[in-house]
């Protein structure tokens, strides 16, 4: 009997919405959470807008010690994990801890704390040899994002395979894909998986300023993230986390768990082209889609909904549109394709998992979220992007795609099982 991974719980910390219910309300209302940056003074920056999470760790059950120890992105993950565990109630008492794993994605990890401490230790960048005595006691935990999966493992009581996945902006898809494979390959029975990011810090914003990848629509932040629109001008930085509880299907069935969907197929490829550039044709992303569908034993025409990478850069939107056409053929013109980055921004490594949570909710509710701010499509982008307004639409098979710096191209297929 082939082992399969099913989703039995989700948790979300997103800009403008903490908790899966609030998140889904925001998306289906087509509301945008993009605004002027408040987390630091961005006056001198080219892009001064972001999708921020209004987050008080104490309000979400983290004590003072946890709040001090965990970097902001880890706090997001801990809160999302707690929600996902409550939603799923996985049978942790029956599954040996050695068979419980964690697979969490992040692109830039503890950047925010690293930078904050660095500024203190270097007299605002003046001293190359920093003053170690000015470091916070938890600094060593910021250098290496293995701490993200470690903290979630502590929370869950996992003692099996615990890993952080860091493939840039596809981390959130890859982490979940690897988690499902760990279950398929009999390395674990339960895997808590997802991704987290808190990159709204000067250095992370500045590095995207430097290559003009982010939007500078500073006068109109609510409408700045405009995937597939003629007037788009880059992505809007976001932050957040999403966590999914995956279980081996027979265990979930036996305990009568509410099975939300199956993680049916996953594939990832490098484009072997450029660290930030994309070839228009989208061949590698298309290949990831085709392979993920093959692994799910689904055909292109089975896909009911495509959750797009849809970052809102010209090159991404065209690359991705071509990749979807290349992989789904004529069916690409019939299937709804939407980008929630229009509402919650682009939270780098986290967004892939947040988008998978959106796919789960779309399957649950029979509604697909819209692409907000899409009023005049780019003529080169000619698919059905569900502009502005959410749509009632039954989804049995959802496809989520992602693309990231480093050339990473990933695809995950969710379905209701066979």
């Amino acid at each position: 009997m082939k082992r399969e991974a099913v989703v039995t719980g989700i948790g979300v910390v997103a800009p403008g919405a903490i908790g899966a219910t609030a998140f889904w309300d925001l998306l289906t209302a087509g509301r945008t959470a993009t605004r002027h940056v408040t987390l630091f003074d961005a006056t001198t920056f080219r892009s001064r807008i972001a999708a921020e999470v209004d987050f008080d760790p104490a309000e979400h059950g983290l004590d003072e010690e946890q709040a001090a120890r965990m970097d902001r992105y880890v706090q997001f993950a801990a809160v999302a994990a707690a929600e996902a565990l409550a939603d799923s109630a996985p049978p942790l008492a029956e599954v040996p801890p050695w068979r419980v794993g964690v697979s969490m994605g992040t692109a830039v990890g503890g950047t925010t704390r690293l930078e904050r401490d660095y500024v203190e230790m270097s007299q605002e960048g003046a001293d190359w040899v920093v003053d170690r005595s000015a470091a916070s006691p938890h600094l060593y935990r910021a250098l290496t994002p293995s701490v993200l999966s470690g903290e979630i493992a502590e929370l869950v009581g996992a003692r099996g395979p615990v890993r952080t996945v860091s493939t840039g902006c596809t981390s959130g898809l890859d982490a979940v894909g690897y988690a499902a494979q760990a279950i398929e390959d009999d390395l674990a029975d339960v895997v808590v998986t997802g991704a987290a990011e808190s990159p709204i810090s000067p250095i992370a914003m500045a590095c995207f300023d430097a290559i003009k990848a982010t939007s500078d629509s500073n006068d109109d932040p609510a409408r700045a993230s405009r995937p597939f629109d003629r007037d788009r001008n880059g992505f809007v930085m976001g932050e957040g986390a999403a966590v999914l509880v995956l279980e081996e299907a027979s265990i979930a069935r036996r305990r009568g768990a509410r099975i939300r969907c199956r993680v049916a197929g996953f594939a990832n490829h490098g484009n072997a082209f450029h660290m930030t550039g994309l070839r228009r044709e989208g061949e590698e992303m298309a290949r990831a889609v085709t392979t993920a569908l093959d692994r799910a034993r689904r055909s292109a025409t089975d896909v009911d909904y495509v959750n797009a990478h849809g970052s809102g850069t010209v090159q991404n939107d065209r690359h991705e549109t071509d990749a979807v056409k290349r992989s789904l053929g004529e069916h690409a013109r019939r299937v709804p394709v939407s980008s929630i980055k229009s509402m919650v921004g682009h939270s780098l490594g986290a967004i892939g998992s947040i988008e998978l949570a959106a796919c789960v909710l779309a399957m649950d509710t029979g509604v697909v979220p819209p692409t907000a701010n899409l009023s005049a499509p780019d003529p080169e982008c000619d698919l059905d992007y569900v502009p502005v307004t959410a749509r009632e639409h039954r989804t049995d098979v959802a496809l989520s795609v992602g693309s990231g710096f480093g050339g990473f191209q990933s695809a995950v297929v969710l379905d209701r099982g066979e």
Partner: protein
Amino acid sequence: MTVVITGLGTVSPAGVGTDGYWDAVSEGRSLIAPIPDFDTDGFHVRLCGKVPGFDPHQHIEGRYVVQTDAFSWFAMVAADEALRDSGLDTGTDPYATGVLICSCAGGVEFGQHEIAALWSGGPDHVGPYQSIAWFYAASTGQISIRNGLKGMCGVLVTDEPGMLDALGQSEGALRRGTSAMLVGGSEAPLGSPFSLACQAGADVLSAGDDPSSAYLPFTERASGYVPAEGAAVAVAEDAATARARGARIRAVVAGHASTFGGVGAFDPGGAGLLHAARGAMDRAGIGPDDVDVVFADAVGTPKADADEAAMLRELFPGGVPVTAPKAGFGRAYAGAGALDVAAAVLSLEHQVIPPTPQVSDAPCGLDLVVRVPRVAPLRTALVLSRGLGGGNSAVVLRHPDHA
């Protein structure tokens, strides 16, 4: 599905290349030296294992050098050697070969320069390569691009065990249709004072200033480890694929397992590492009597060493030769497990157990190989690794004639 290693490359404190690495390791040479680039008085660490005289321009095209940190240079150079060594044809089908290079600290020296530029000059002083040099995925991405490899491309951050976990992950990738995986670990955490300050915060670095006594794992004088830099990359393939193309099989990856032991403490009690070792041996279908040598994690703190020694005594009641070549050059984070895997492959090939440098005796009830290399019939090696983030991993490597 049997995963085999058909190519190997290293950049280590012994220099570029596996030949020099094996010479130094098998002789038990000490490669530990003062941290050369800046005054580390405030960091309570004075010594390191640095790659000597490394000039990236000797090995890598300028356009790649300028947009990457040293951790990616080491990875690219080790990958070049591994690919050459494997004789793999990567040109026919770009999707046939994937890449998975692990790192703990990413391009931290590059990052420190850019953060300094930002805070002293403003956002427009940050260069265009910060977005692609600092993040943990930089090495996998650049190796994919530089070598035209479009197979499964990934990055794990599991600290020192990274390479061991990458070998485990490669089995899943090969089973799903990738023909070959370029897997490794790479780290360059020494050139940035800020990086050293981060490492020093965990209170596990040796403060010693005598290269002969600063890193003495499994001894009563153990007082932390010496940080190091370096990389190792291997080409992993399915045995059948490798044989069909007439490749030289350097070692069989017979089993892998990983467990979690808690954040910030190197698996207190050793139960996690023990479980990982047993898991890897079970998957390899072997028992304790089949293991001819253990490459120990050897953190070099009294507690972590005692836990590992106790776990080894429990797993091998009849004893087993144990070694820790890294005592001669330090602990290179994601490069550490990778360089241990490389040492184990070379050890099986040469039928020689390299000694644990600097250490003259081991009062911890282990058969620690010290002072001189030990010639022995070696069929099976067990490699162990732990990370401060909580990961414990074990890999069983077997000589291809005895797998």
